[in-house]
């Protein structure tokens, strides 16, 4: 089944292009260490998922590019054409002369309604190209103006126009130190609006990815491109074909990837935040000299999950799941605030050699999960494929609906609230038609999210 990617704003367009690049490289990356038949069905499903093939041999990304400035879209299109293995449909982009100036309200209240029709037309054309449309993946940043403001508007439009399609928003969480002074406002507005219209929010924190680049990939001067590449790799490792049961890979590969993911991870409307972790992650140069074993990889991945670590280095191995049967008060004191990361549901994807031998017992432990679900039947899903992903002989990725975002979310809302209480920069928003009540509603929505995740 196909996914249509909607790239919004500078960040969205750059990340989106990296995602297609990663997937295309993976699809052209040789035999993938598995049987020929397996590889063929993997390739066919992967191609159908992300590309259309109008002329034989030319893969055109199923994507709609939207930005208010022409510069980034121009770069994105030309970089894609230069790749030689895939391209964008050059009809499928929308841009204007003037950006949103990092103002969320400008994107949401002005650009959104003004350009809704043209954007939705492009989306419709892309949708008509799909025989089997699974849903939409929108890629955007959370802190800017066009991506986040217009993105939130477009997401609501998609929900209206395609009520039965699945809607996953990928959002990039800004650096804590901040690029934009009003980023906390923008973040609060984006998240709360997406919470109303999207089915799930997949979050990447810039800070965490930056650390991965520095410590795991050994990159000295880290550019946005490096960060985006890591994000793309992680997304690809989830959305490339994999099957949820061992019965018949080929038909399983062609199932609806977004639908399957959401059904197991985000059925509850109050819990829509997804985080992603993967292992191993390293620079391409050291890859050929390293071997991995499943028990070690999965042990690390599990500890990354429960200790809320974003990468395999520097994990706190002291964190243990709470002992069941203890009275609540005692449990609390043991837990120490914010240390143990309780999950609602997890999806583990395993790719590569000897996946049959991988033992996921550690992820089945009911102590990892909230008590109101039946662990592990309701809480753990496993996708597998013997096809190796992007040169990694073995790799595992974990999409998790857990408390991982509780702290950053709390801090963003807190900072934004402080600014709001002193009415700082509010006029920049009100002049585009967003009033203080709207802000208050957004705060309430997120407070509710924080409370829900906090009381797992």
């Amino acid at each position: 089944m196909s996914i249509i990617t909607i790239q919004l704003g500078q960040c969205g367009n750059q990340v989106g292009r990296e995602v297609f690049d990663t997937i295309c490289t993976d699809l052209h990356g040789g035999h993938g260490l598995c049987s020929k038949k397996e590889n063929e069905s993997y390739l066919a499903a992967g191609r159908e998922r992300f590309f259309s093939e109008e002329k034989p041999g030319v893969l055109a990304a199923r994507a709609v590019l939207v930005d208010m400035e022409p510069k980034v879209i121009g770069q994105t299109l030309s970089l894609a054409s230069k790749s030689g293995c895939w391209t964008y449909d050059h009809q499928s982009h929308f841009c204007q002369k003037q950006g949103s100036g990092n103002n969320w309200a400008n994107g949401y209240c002005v650009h959104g309604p003004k350009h809704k029709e043209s954007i939705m037309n492009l989306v419709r054309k892309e949708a008509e190209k799909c025989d089997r449309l699974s849903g939409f993946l929108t890629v955007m940043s959370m802190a800017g103006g066009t991506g986040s403001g217009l993105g939130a508007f477009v997401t609501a439009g998609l929900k209206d126009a395609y009520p039965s399609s699945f809607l996953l928003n990928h959002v990039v969480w800004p650096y804590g130190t901040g690029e934009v002074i009003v980023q906390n406002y923008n973040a609060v507005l984006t998240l709360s609006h997406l919470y109303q219209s999207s089915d799930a929010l997949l979050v990447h924190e810039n800070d965490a990815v930056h650390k991965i680049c520095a410590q795991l990939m050994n990159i000295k001067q880290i550019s946005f491109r490096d960060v985006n590449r890591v994000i793309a790799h992680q997304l690809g490792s989830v959305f490339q074909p994999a099957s949820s049961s061992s019965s018949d890979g080929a038909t399983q590969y062609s199932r609806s990837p977004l639908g399957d993911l959401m059904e197991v991870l985000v059925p509850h409307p109050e819990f829509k935040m997804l985080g992603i972790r993967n292992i191993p992650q390293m620079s391409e140069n050291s890859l050929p000299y390293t071997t991995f074993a499943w028990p070690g990889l999965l042990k690390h991945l599990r500890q990354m999950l429960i200790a809320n670590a974003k990468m395999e280095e520097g994990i706190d191995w002291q964190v243990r799941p709470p002992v069941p049967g203890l009275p609540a008060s005692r449990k609390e004191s043991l837990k120490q605030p914010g240390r143990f990361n309780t999950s609602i549901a997890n999806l583990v994807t395993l790719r590569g050699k000897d996946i049959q031998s991988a033992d996921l017992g550690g992820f089945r432990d009911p102590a990892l999960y909230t008590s109101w679900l039946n662990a592990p039947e309701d809480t753990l899903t496993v996708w597998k494929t013997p096809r190796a992903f992007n040169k990694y002989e073995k790799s595992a990725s974990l999409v998790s609906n857990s408390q991982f975002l509780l702290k950053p979310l709390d801090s963003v809302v807190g900072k934004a609230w402080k600014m709001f209480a002193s009415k700082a920069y509010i006029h920049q928003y009100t002049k585009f038609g967003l009033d203080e009540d709207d802000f208050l509603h957004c705060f309430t929505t997120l407070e509710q999210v924080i409370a829900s995740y906090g009381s797992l």
Partner: protein
Amino acid sequence: MKGARSVAMVALGPGAASLPAAIAALGLSLPAARLSPEIFRLGKFDRPEVSVSFWKLLYTLLKQIHNGGQMESPDIGTQVKFVKYVVLGHGYRRLKFYQLPSDGSLGSKELLLVFSWLLCRVSLVKQSLALSRLKLCDETVVCICDTTVKNIQIERNLDETVHVKGHRDIRYLQWLNGQLEFQWRNCHIEQQEQCKLLHKIHSYTFGPHANPTIGHFSTTEVDVVKKPESCKQLLHLIESESSRLEAFLKWKSMEPLYWRWMETVLDPDTKEAKTQDVCNKNPLLLSSDLCYSDLSRTIEELDRCRTDLVTLCEELHKLVMFKKLNSTGTVRAGEQGQLREGEFSRTTKKIEAAVALKLSDFQCHSHAYRIKKIHGPYRLVFKGKSSKAHKKDSFKSIPPNKAITVEITAEDVISNLKRQEARMKAELKGRQEESRKRLHEAAKGFSQMLVIPPMRKQKARDAKC
């Protein structure tokens, strides 16, 4: 059962000798189930050695009807559980059967009774034949039977009978509900995909079909044209199906014999039957048949509505007369009379509304009755190119038992569904309003609680901007 079986009095010439032949014919007409007449004979004497075969037989047949694939064959305990559950759903109420041990070691006579009961009540053979029927042309099932009223009744029953305190976390229920919604959407997406692909096949193969009213190939036909070797396989399937149908015909002619024999199985039991029949308490379970609202039920419904309407009209009339008399009497009494007048008009309005509602229900029912004719599988025929600019899919019925073909256009079906949707939406709205009121009532008890309304929808904001 006895009344229905009085038909069996006809033609019992050959006697018990041909019973095995009848059972063999029955076995041939059922798929994947080899019936040996011997297990029936042993079943009559409640011999334990055949009980497992009976459980297995029931499991395979019921599993097939309840659209489960026959891939896995679980242990006998699961099979027994499944059979008991499904049979209960069909409304079987004999306690003895449900008390049979779960290892399947006992009760072949009870199982024989259940099997025969299903045969007669659920028309097991017909259903199984219909399900495994070869689909040579593209079909769709059209069903515009009115189910709303029935659902309300079920729900009322639920309200009254289920007092179980939920000890599950409410979040778990919300989770399950969300999961259901996603599954619906997945289903919808798959349906859309199928439509798209069928449309492609139909429009690409327009022209060469031998039957000009159809004009294009079906999926099976395309498959055969593309892969001639599958022709043989198809032929084989058709042959086996027709042999099953032949066996069914044979069984039909010999069926009375079987029921005569069943009476001998039942006879010693009839005395105790009345005392055993204690399971028949829960009306909710009785109504949980599979949305199979047949004609008779609709007619019954219709009759009930009509009598309801008539009584309501009469009541209204009486009430109006009474109130009129009353009010003319009281008008002279001055101010107080005016007050009553208000009350009177309120009551009349209320009754009028009730009548209007009943009337709309009545109309719906008569509509449903008319549309009843389009219930069942229909052949999908694409008429895109013949009707020029006006593109439309049209359904044409396959005449299964009658020679007349009934055509329905997709437009008709869609408009019907839309009407139904509108009705259901109205009902939903009413119920939401009702629940909201109840919620308000309940919230009054918690004066210290702060309730925040959900965020405004975007449309409201658009209007404001």
